[in-house]
């Protein structure tokens, strides 16, 4: 809406940002400057993701420091908020309205006139594959449909910036794939997107630029690959099940990068400093057939491990 995004400006930034609710500190001395088409906001429950999102969408005033979108403070900034779309995590409101009424009403709150809001609401329903549910009461929609409707209300007025809080939650694989495609299309067109998620692989599908929050502090910022490399500097754990776990463990311990092997019944956990080489080796051993490897699972390919290693 209005002016286009200028690429020279840093899209999302914070300097010494802190937010506390009474005695509880939600965010503490967070500073970042990030400019990417899509930025992922990662963190476990209570990390401060929602507080940061609320600060970026002008719902909260910082207790200390400064937060800005395109160099402007969002709190009370109606010009900025008119160009922003926000998809909240919660979806239990106005269940008696139809999908169309819901979108039309919320689009009008951006200042769009009634006729324009009606057109935009229908377009947003179409984009999110909800045309068939247009006149259906929200109460009767499935969780995945509600989720798409929430995204639709954020997209309907064609914002320059999108802030999405857990947009993939409750969606089936097809819905996720479609959502990922839609977000990429938006970003390719010039819309800047910040989305939060608990799940690393969901974010990886849409972006490689992330902000990682933990206990109210910024834990990491940048490309996921770089953060992955940080993990790889620590011993990487791989769980295997095989018919001869002892012999397999003995074989793996011959290699320098294997730091440790734990054996229990027919399974073993290998700790390696070179996961890529180790995966290749295990593949070769499996093909050779002598150890009858039944399954292989990386225990460190998740966000929890990222936290564990980075917090250390």
């Amino acid at each position: 809406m209005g002016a286009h995004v200028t690429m020279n400006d840093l899209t999302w930034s914070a300097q010494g940002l802190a937010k506390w609710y009474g005695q509880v500190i939600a965010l503490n001395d967070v500073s970042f400057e990030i400019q990417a088409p899509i930025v992922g906001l990662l963190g476990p429950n209570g990390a401060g993701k929602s507080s940061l999102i609320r600060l970026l969408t002008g719902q909260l005033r910082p207790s200390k420091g400064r937060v800005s979108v395109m160099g402007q403070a969002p709190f009370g900034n109606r010009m900025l908020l008119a160009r922003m779309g926000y998809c909240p995590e919660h979806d239990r409101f106005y269940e008696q309205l139809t999908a169309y009424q819901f979108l039309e009403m919320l689009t009008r709150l951006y200042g769009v006139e009634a006729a324009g809001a009606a057109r935009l609401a229908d377009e947003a329903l179409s984009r999110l594959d909800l045309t068939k549910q247009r006149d259906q009461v929200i109460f009767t929609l499935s969780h995945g449909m509600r989720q798409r409707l929430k995204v639709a209300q954020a997209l309907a007025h064609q914002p320059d910036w999108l802030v999405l809080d857990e947009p993939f939650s409750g969606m089936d694989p097809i819905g996720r794939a479609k959502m990922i495609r839609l977000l990429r299309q938006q970003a390719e067109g010039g819309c800047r997107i910040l989305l939060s998620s608990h799940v690393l692989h969901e974010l990886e599908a849409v972006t490689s630029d992330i902000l990682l929050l933990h206990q109210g502090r910024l834990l990491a910022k940048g490309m996921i690959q770089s953060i992955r490399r940080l993990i790889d500097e620590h011993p990487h754990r791989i769980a295997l099940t095989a018919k001869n776990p002892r012999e397999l463990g003995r074989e793996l311990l011959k290699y320098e990068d294997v730091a440790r092997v734990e054996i229990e019944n027919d399974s073993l956990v290998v700790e390696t400093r070179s996961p890529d080489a180790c995966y290749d080796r295990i593949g070769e051993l499996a093909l050779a057939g002598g150890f009858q490897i039944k399954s292989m699972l990386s225990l460190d390919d998740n966000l929890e491990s990222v936290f564990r290693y980075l917090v250390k």
Partner: protein
Amino acid sequence: MNQVDSNNQAEIYDQGYRPFDGSLASPSTRFWPIAMRELRQAWKDKWFRRLLWVAYIPLVVYCVLVVISARFPTINLNMDGLWPKFWRGQLFLAVFMTYFIGRGAVGEDLRTGALTVYFSRPVSFLQYLLGKWSAVSVGVAGVTLLPGFVLGLFRYLAEPDSNMMQFLGWLASIAFLSGLVCALFGLIILAVSSLTRRSRMAGIVWFTMFFVLSAAAEGISEATGMSQFVLMSFFEINVKMAELLLEGSGGLEPGLWLGLGHLIWMAAGFSVILIRLRRWVRM
């Protein structure tokens, strides 16, 4: 860009980002979608729709009485105090109307997290409040202002001794009184609604306040002989104000007291809302 195949008449639509190039409404009207949602929500309640019908029964009865009294003077109908009696009845209905529209107006938004959606948009706190208040006011005006105007018009047309000045005086008084009721009931129900996330609880508190305070105000003012105690009840001060304006009973001093009472109640209601929603207050 959209891709079009002219042979097959097929078209692939571009679902990517496009900046909005339509016209924008004035920010001053941004409260209206909020009010419309509240009214739409209330309309879905069958008891609300029934109340709307019931609200016009007294009007029909009073109109019939006015016609009988004017056309058949031999039938001795006591038409003294017609306006206060009519107004008291409409106020009673306004209490129910306020309940239906306003009981969950703020509490539901607090419960469901809808406030985050409102205030992530370019909506100010006052626009939000105005939207909620307007919805209650439309309902209250529907059972006070509109029937009042119709009754005034009916009296003017039916009663041979009424004149234009008298008619205009009734209309002005009804408009003023209705405005007071809308302001007062609207702010109080929004304050009550902001205190609890459960609509039912807000409704119970609203009716308890109405009954208990009305009974207490009337009882104490009668027992002590001090009419100022009617200020305790947001219902009774409206009844007394109607008597003052429509019947000319009382004088300047009671009028000042009643005006002060309205201001105190409104300030209290607004303060409660402000405290409860302070996190969302912005320009």
